[in-house]
């Protein structure tokens, strides 16, 4: 390992309008090193990667490559230098097959490319069928395609943006093995993540970002997760607090033999799903998105109707064929994973967005909106759930994802529902706010609410749930009581182990 850094950034800044996304960032990556960039959502990690990959251009500062200052005006410049990037939300084309996707970036004949894909696959444990259509591949396989596509360009530096956020634990292990093999070959790796344990396991250097600035350059193996977390969020790690487990009461939501054919070619068919959610219980549905999560959520919320009324029962009433409004009247509330367009109307003010689901809280008088009640409700929601916004008149679409999520969740919680469905409660929410959201869910449980949480974050599910199910390819696993199971066990179900 030579000491000359392959990539060196000095004083790099980037500003979007009034937001200083990166401020005087110094970063230096040595060949053969796995270097972590650690930070919360919104800390400026993605912006920094875009600068390195030539998608955006720095306002100030210089990027050095092998000691030479370079100007990257577009991604192909970065590729030409030997920088490869694996995106968090993959940059693959679903209607094309694997070789076609690769050939869009790598020159060469299809036959040769297919052979090379197989060779690389064997060497680095990245097996994938070159002729498979991308939309038929699992998320893990898609990531392999992305990595292979980068590797075929012989990169000196490989950037991975939150690569593990979509993988089950077993696949994470495979990915790490691959990365270590690449490291031995002398490839430098820039590993972006907010998962502390992973970084401690894999990386030999870490640059910590907070609020767009570097707050630390450390060897993550020498610091414990708590110390890294403090550097990352700049304060004590928030605690969930003690949660008193309640003895589960009556069944509030029962799903029995729910099957539903997929609506589109890219959808998932749900097969024979059974679930029993009781008062004072939080049940989590683990699994990687795209395995039927959206379909299941839409069926429970009433957005899609089930084929039989008794497939879904809320509080002893068959609701399978009822609409969302009728289900809400029974004391059901839900938070969809899509915030804009499903959870809130972007063009409307927060106050009007409250009205959409909370109108029965005295906001209407013979069909006429009582603005005062609407505003008071919204203001209370903003205060209680720490929504950072100018006020109830702010447009929903202008808010950051995390803030909007707090608002939507708050609005639904203030309806004090008996049964609640929450999809991806903390996607894009910073660590502090995520903990606050989880704490609220636990409080609701103590007060006897029945909550169903659909989430990709295993750690989160283990923190708050009493029972876990895994949704894989439209099938739901048996109930796994959290106290008796492990992440590995859940992982095997995520990979398709049979019930």
């Amino acid at each position, binding site marked *: 390992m030579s000491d000359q850094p392959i990539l060196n950034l000095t004083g790099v800044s980037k500003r979007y309008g009034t937001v200083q996304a990166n401020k005087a960032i110094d970063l230096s990556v040595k060949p053969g090193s796995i270097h972590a960039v650690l930070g919360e959502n919104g800390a400026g990690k993605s912006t920094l990667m875009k600068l390195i990959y030539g*998608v955006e251009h720095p306002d100030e500062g210089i990027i050095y490559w092998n000691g030479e200052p370079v100007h990257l005006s*577009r991604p*192909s410049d970065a590729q030409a230098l030997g920088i490869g990037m694996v*995106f968090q939300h993959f940059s*693959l084309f679903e209607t094309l097959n694997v070789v*076609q996707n690769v050939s*869009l*970036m790598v020159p060469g004949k299809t036959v040769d490319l297919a052979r090379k894909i197989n060779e690389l696959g064997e060497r680095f444990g990245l097996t994938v069928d070159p002729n498979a259509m991308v939309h038929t591949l699992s998320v893990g396989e898609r990531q392999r395609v992305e990595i292979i*596509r980068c590797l075929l360009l012989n990169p000196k530096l490989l950037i991975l943006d939150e690569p593990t956020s979509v993988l089950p634990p077993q696949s994470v292990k495979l990915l790490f093995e691959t990365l270590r093999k690449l490291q031995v070959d002398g490839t430098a790796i820039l590993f972006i993540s907010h998962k502390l344990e992973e970084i401690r396991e894999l990386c030999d250097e870490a640059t910590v970002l907070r609020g767009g600035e570097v707050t630390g350059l450390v060897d993550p193996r020498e610091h414990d997760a708590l110390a890294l977390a403090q550097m990352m969020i700049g304060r004590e790690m928030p605690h969930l607090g003690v949660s008193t487990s309640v003895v589960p009461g009556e069944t509030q939501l029962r799903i029995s033999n729910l099957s539903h054919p997929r609506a589109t070619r890219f959808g998932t068919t749900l097969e024979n799903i059974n679930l029993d959610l009781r008062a004072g219980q939080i049940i989590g549905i683990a699994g990687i998105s795209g395995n039927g999560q959206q379909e299941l959520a839409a069926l429970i919320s009433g957005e899609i109707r089930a084929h039989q009324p008794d497939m879904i029962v809320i509080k002893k009433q068959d609701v399978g064929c009822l609409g969302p409004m009728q289900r809400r009247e029974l004391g059901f509330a839900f938070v969809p994973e899509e915030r804009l367009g499903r959870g809130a109307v972007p063009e409307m003010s927060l106050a009007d967005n409250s009205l959409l689901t909370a109108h029965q809280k005295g906001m209407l008088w013979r069909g006429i909106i009582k603005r005062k009640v609407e505003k008071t409700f919204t203001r209370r929601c903003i205060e209680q759930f720490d929504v950072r916004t100018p006020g109830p008149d702010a447009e929903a679409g202008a808010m950051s994802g995390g803030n909007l999520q707090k608002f939507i969740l708050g609005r639904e919680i203030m309806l004090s529902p008996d049964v609640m469905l929450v999809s991806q409660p903390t996607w894009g929410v910073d660590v502090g706010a995520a903990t606050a959201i989880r704490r609220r869910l636990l409080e609701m449980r103590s007060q006897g609410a029945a909550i169903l949480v659909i989430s990709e974050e295993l750690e989160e599910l283990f923190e708050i749930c009493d029972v876990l199910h895994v949704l894989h390819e439209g099938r739901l696993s048996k109930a796994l009581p959290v106290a008796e199971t492990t992440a590995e066990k859940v992982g095997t179900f995520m990979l398709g182990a049979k019930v």
Partner: protein
Amino acid sequence: MSALEFLLAGTLAAALPLLLAALGEMVVEKTGLLNLGLEGMMALGAAIAFICVYHSGSHSFGFLAASLAGATLAMLFAFLVIFLKANEVASGLAVGVLGLGLSALFGKNYESLTISGLSEFGLPALSKIPVIGPALFTQDIVVWLAITGTMVLWYILNKTKLGLIIAAVGENVEAARAIGYPVGGIRCAAVAFGGGMCGLAGAYASTVYTPLWADGMIAGRGWIALALVVFGTWQTGRVAFGAVLFGVLSLGELTAQAIGVAIPSQVLSSLPYFVTILMLVAISRHRRHSS
């Protein structure tokens, strides 16, 4: 000339303006844009081509000028949508209206003038086939070029890297940009191609199919071409089939009137549009069942 011969001889020529415009728009839509200005680009092409042919007597020159005019107008659309990020629908309509206006302005002094069309020639051997041969396989040069061009376009879109890139840009712009393709440039090129094809379509309509210029002579064919792209589900072969089908229907209407079918002509004239609606319904139903 029997009714059948009339149909065989005229179908391809009637289909040609639709075919060219629809194929051009198909490429535009494959890159993820929608240009609604077909009608205007065709009209401008028609007027420019007529003027050029009238003065120079050269059809080649007329077609060249028309394709340039169409492409230039399309570049205005590309500039608005790609660089100024203007609304696609509004920009497309505006460009269409502008094209119609320009064509009326330029063509004002050329109405009721005439030029000669293009001579037809038969394909050797094929045009000797009894009954259908002389009618179907005797066409003007543009028809033969357009058929060849359609095949070439199919090959490019389905078998080459360029086709792959076009499909990729249309499917996922962000991803295409992320892996380093100049998305704006590719889209500009596609829009220019679409405009050029519309210009050619207009040129054929005003200098070959009916060699005269009259304001409003495109008569909705731009909109039909737009519908044909959807009808053909963005596939070259199906779009071409749709164009020919439409050619048959529009000629069938004339034939039926000529042989004295006792149906009001308005009903017959609406037939092609009616069939289009039926086909669109059939396609969407089929798609829903197969998924």
